[in-house]
């Protein structure tokens, strides 16, 4: 009976309800307004432009309608397969490792011990540092000619000669993933840490009484309880990785020989390097569609509790 008091539905149908609630909309208007402003037109423009040929020699006003040709160009290009594969590798592994490290860190930090706050703070720093700065820091560490990592590995006898990561087709993507995970695992950690604090002690104690060891308590009690948080974290990371631009762009520009090119760097390259906004738009639309599929699950996960509350 504790219904919030402006919530009475009306018998007057949708319009009537909207009128009844007209003042409620005022609260969300600024947020929605600014969102629409920044999103609506760009989405429309991107879709629109994806059906036009826009060679660099033509002004935008002279673009030529060419139906789905841009989509065919994107999907049929030599590099599409490699770039898509790179994107999958980049996104999946970045997400996976960020999650695993974040989960491990959260489990360790969930115990009370001296200096816990300090440790948590130190582990969180990479999350706060700008991606631009992080890219430069790691590029400097990885540097083939002057980098500290190569020197240390050489001293340890793990490599002979120069360490070649960023200029090496096989190593570049894993190396970038290491940087990305470095920046992202603290986010996973903090999310999971928050989730862990809601695991009821009674449940763990009950499991302990039932004779479950640490691993079984984790597997049968903690993990199921974390499911919601983990899903949300994975989705957020996934989306973020799919969209991540700065680290690959500043560190390698997608090179060498396209070995670290992912969708989003490709799109930027096509748009601003090759000045083909039509093709770039078609590419973006393809990315959108993938995002929408993921987004469906994302929104579902984010608002899962919403459904329960509303009824």
């Amino acid at each position: 009976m504790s219904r919030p008091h402006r919530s009475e539905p009306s018998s007057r149908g949708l319009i009537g309800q909207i009128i009844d609630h007209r003042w409620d909309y005022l609260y969300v208007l600024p947020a929605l307004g600014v969102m629409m402003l920044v999103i609506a037109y760009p989405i429309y423009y991107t879709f629109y432009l994806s059906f036009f040929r826009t060679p660099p020699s033509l002004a935008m006003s002279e673009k030529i309608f060419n139906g789905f040709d841009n989509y065919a160009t994107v999907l049929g290009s030599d590099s599409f397969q490699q770039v898509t594969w790179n994107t999958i590798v980049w996104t999946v592994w970045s997400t996976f490792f960020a999650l695993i490290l974040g989960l491990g860190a959260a489990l360790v930090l969930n115990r009370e011990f001296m200096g816990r706050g300090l440790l948590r703070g130190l582990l969180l720093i990479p999350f706060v540092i700008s991606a631009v700065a992080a890219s430069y820091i790691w590029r400097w560490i990885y540097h083939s000619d002057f980098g500290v990592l190569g020197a240390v590995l050489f001293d340890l006898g793990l490599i002979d000669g120069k360490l070649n990561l960023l200029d090496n087709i096989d190593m570049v993507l894993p190396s970038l993933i290491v940087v990305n995970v470095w920046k992202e695992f603290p986010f996973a950690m903090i999310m999971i840490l928050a989730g862990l604090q809601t695991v009821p002690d009674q449940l763990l104690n009950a499991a302990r009484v039932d004779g479950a060891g640490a691993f079984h308590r984790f597997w049968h009690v903690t993990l199921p309880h974390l499911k919601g948080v983990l899903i949300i974290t994975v989705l957020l990371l996934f989306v973020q990785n799919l969209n991540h631009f700065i680290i690959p762009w500043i560190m390698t520009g997608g090179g060498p020989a396209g070995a670290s090119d992912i969708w989003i760097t490709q799109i930027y390259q096509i748009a601003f390097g090759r000045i083909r906004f039509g093709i770039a738009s078609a590419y973006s639309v393809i990315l959108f569609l993938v995002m929408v599929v993921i987004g469906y699950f994302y929104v579902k996960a984010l608002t899962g509790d919403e459904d329960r509350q509303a009824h």
Partner: protein
Amino acid sequence: MAQVEFQEVVKRYGSFEAVKSVSFTVEDGEFVALVGPSGCGKTTTLNLIAGLLDLTGGAIRVGGRQINDLDPKDRDIAMVFQNYALYPNKTVRQNLGFPLRMRKVPKRELEEKVNDAARLLDITHLLDRRPRELSGGQQQRVALGRALVRDPQVFLMDEPLSNLDAKLRVQMRAELKRFHQDLNATVIYVTHDQLEAMTMADKMAVMSGGVLQQYDTPERVFEEPANVFVAGFVGSPAMNLLPARVVENGGAVQAAGEGWELALSPRNAASARRASGDAVILGARHSSLILHEEAAPGCIAAKIYTVEPTGDLTYAHVEVGGKTFVISLDPQRRIRADQPVWIEFDQDRLHLFDAVTEQRLPPG
């Protein structure tokens, strides 16, 4: 303090009518309990007085002033919530002082009033704690205190005792009643517990399905329930109800059911004749029935279903004509399950209801 008057108050949610044309008047200084099962509209009614909900129709007047369209803050009422609604980030002192601060009461006066209320409620030692550091009973007192400090025209209480354990509830019940007597305040008290209403209230407003069923003193509600619903709702254990047909048998009027018949006293017979048809419902409190272990004239044959000793009294559940009656007995009596018994009705305390309208049939 003031009188509160409800005049044909209606509250609709879409096509659903939560409160249906309710009218009653709470006199100045009265303690009125709004009672009924959950979903009956009692909390809605309370929220209408508080201004937390807007009326669909009718009027509410406090001290003669119509308050329908006033903001809650301008109605000069205080409210105690079921979950206390103490401000978790404020200390007890700040919680108590908050209503005064909002009314711009001078600081010195504010402190005085807060201290007075704290003394009255015996929570002076808790003043600098925060709500989460208090026990349920202490929180309850703070919530009460927050209502008291302001000296409002009307106190509204929404099931204030329902979150307390049984023992504390009894104690607080007494305290609340005492406060009411001391302050002589107008209180409107919502509860689903008819015992609470019976014990504390000057008057009870029994509601069901958004309709005010009866508004009267607890004694009258208990003794003369207006209808079948009130009869079944008020009193514990509930009144035993038995459908019957009225049969005229050569001047003598009898109520008859499946395998039983009961001759009605002249007074009851007169009542029965007022029924719209020949169907009536007999109502009898557990204490107005007498159990015989041997057949006796004017009794109805029955069988013991089970026996519940409670110490003071023993309740016998008895199967009569497909229904189960509860009858209170002297705890000294030894009765067994499945034992055949005979029930005698105290005709002076028998209630008759029209089976169609479910309304009470007034005595002849």
